[in-house]
């Protein structure tokens, strides 16, 4: 049986491996090669000289990287705080309502990110849904909160909420009720139960949620472009400009490589820590 499983496993993994090899690993290899070539070349038959990395440092491209990382970190932290109570409710309190929330949140994911962010522009702009009606009813308007760093973080929080909510709910559902009950019986306060039982025992879910939102947000671009009006440039935006408008593949590749290595290290570290069989097999 074991030998047969081995053979069938290899065969069954083939279609996926072919797709990933040809359209994921190979293109990333090409990015890695281009990143060390002289700038503005379009063929890999060139001597590498790492000039793109120098340009990256000299021309301040690290700023957009730092901004992206900062915004991703801020958004993940805000998301953790916002999602915790709801995730707790979904895992421990709600019954039918947990299913309704799950369906509602998943359905929102099916709407193109663009349309939802555009919806926020219509909601928040001067003369938009909120300001327009407020002024109509009270005569008092307000300046549009769009086009700054805060609103970009808000957009990231909005778009990536499901990616924090579901792992958290999964993590909290793994906290045994007995442990919480015992702590309460021994006189622990609610705060002590939270900090000494819930948070440590839900740590795998917290880690997955944090990693997922951070990694996705670090590579995000649409929030900064649509809501932020490019108040700050996201690293993904710089990468796009280098590839398209700048026609500088090595620079785009070098910027990509920095982002890929950062995100990849985090993602691989996180994925290696997750016991997928345990998380997914419970159902």
């Amino acid at each position, binding site marked *: *049986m074991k030998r047969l*499983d*081995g053979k*069938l*496993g290899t065969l069954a*993994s083939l*279609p*996926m491996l072919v*797709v*990933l090899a*040809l*359209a*994921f690993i190979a*293109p990333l290899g*090409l990015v890695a090669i281009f990143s060390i070539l002289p700038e503005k070349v379009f063929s890999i038959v060139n001597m590498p000289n790492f000039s793109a990395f120098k340009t990256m440092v000299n021309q301040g491209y690290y700023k957009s990287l730092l901004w992206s990382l900062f915004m991703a970190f801020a958004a993940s932290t805000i998301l953790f705080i*916002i999602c915790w*109570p*709801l995730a707790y409710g*979904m895992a421990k*309190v709600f019954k039918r*309502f947990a299913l309704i*929330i799950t369906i*509602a949140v998943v*359905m929102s*994911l099916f*709407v*193109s990110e*663009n*349309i*939802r*962010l*555009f*919806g926020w*522009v*219509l*909601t928040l702009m001067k003369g*938009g*849904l909120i*300001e327009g009606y407020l002024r*109509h009813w009270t005569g008092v308007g307000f300046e549009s909160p769009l086009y700054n760093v805060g609103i970009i973080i808000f957009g990231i929080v*909005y778009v990536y*909420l499901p990616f924090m909510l579901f792992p958290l709910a999964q993590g909290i559902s793994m906290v045994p*009720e007995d442990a*919480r009950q015992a702590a309460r019986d021994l006189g622990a306060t609610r705060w002590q139960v939270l900090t000494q039982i819930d948070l440590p025992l839900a740590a795998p879910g917290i880690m997955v949620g944090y*990693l997922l939102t951070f990694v*996705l947000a670090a*590579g995000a671009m*649409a929030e900064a472009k*649509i809501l932020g009006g490019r108040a700050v440039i996201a690293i*993904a935006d710089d990468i*796009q400009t280098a*590839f*398209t408008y700048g026609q500088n593949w090595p620079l785009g590749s070098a910027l990509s490589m920095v982002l890929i290595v950062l*995100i990849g290290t985090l*993602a691989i570290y996180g*994925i290696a820590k997750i016991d*997928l069989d345990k998380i*997914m*097999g419970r*159902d």
Partner: protein
Amino acid sequence: MGTSRTTRIALTIYGIIIIAFLYLPLVSVAFASVSKARYLTFPIKRYSTGWFSEALASTEVRMLALTSLKIAVIVTILSMIIGFFGALAFARYQWRYRSLFQKLVLLPIFFPQTVLGLALLMWFNSLGIIPSWKTAIVAHLVWIAPIATLIVAIRAYSFDPALEEAARDMGASTPVILREITLPLLMPGIVAAGLFSFLLSWGNFPLSLFTTGADSTLPEWLYAKMVSGYSPLVPTLGILSVIGSFLLVIAALAGLAIYRALRPQK
């Protein structure tokens, strides 16, 4: 630990607020789509469904929808096939590199889509392939097939290998077992994966942007209009696309309910 009534009510209200927060922008888009004015301001003074008829009559819109649909349908079919086999390798068979395979499947999901799209653009260029809607299928697959695999895998985990072994002991060959036992048992997962694949492909923007070449999908067109010159068709098409997606989900949920009701009781 019994949760107090107050906590339960407070958490329920909190849940409703979060859901409202998720859907508020769509409410604005819906309002905007029925505003008669060419340049939108709230409160809306005159309502009209004119933009809807204009959108539905436009050949450009039809072309965009057709391109999006072609890509989504092919991505769905391929993702279901790859996801079915991938899930077996992911969850069912105990083979040597299973753990490595699981981790490899997760990587593209974590990967920034913009960077993936650009890397693919460069890759296609180097291979001498001119990007079109066909190359977008490849790009979508890299991201969507892993998600489909995960969805089918959830189903494959709850599946009892003894069923397959019993069939094998009675002399069934591997293709027969796959067709008669494995496939029907995983079918609900495969259908769910297909639904996700279709909707994610239909709504995808970052991958399409760089890999469709001269062709354009609906989300690409919407984005282009959002950043350069407003068109009153943007909210209209946006909301039409949303309604289409939601109808599909509702139809799927209804189909599931009917299937459960009609299924013979165990």
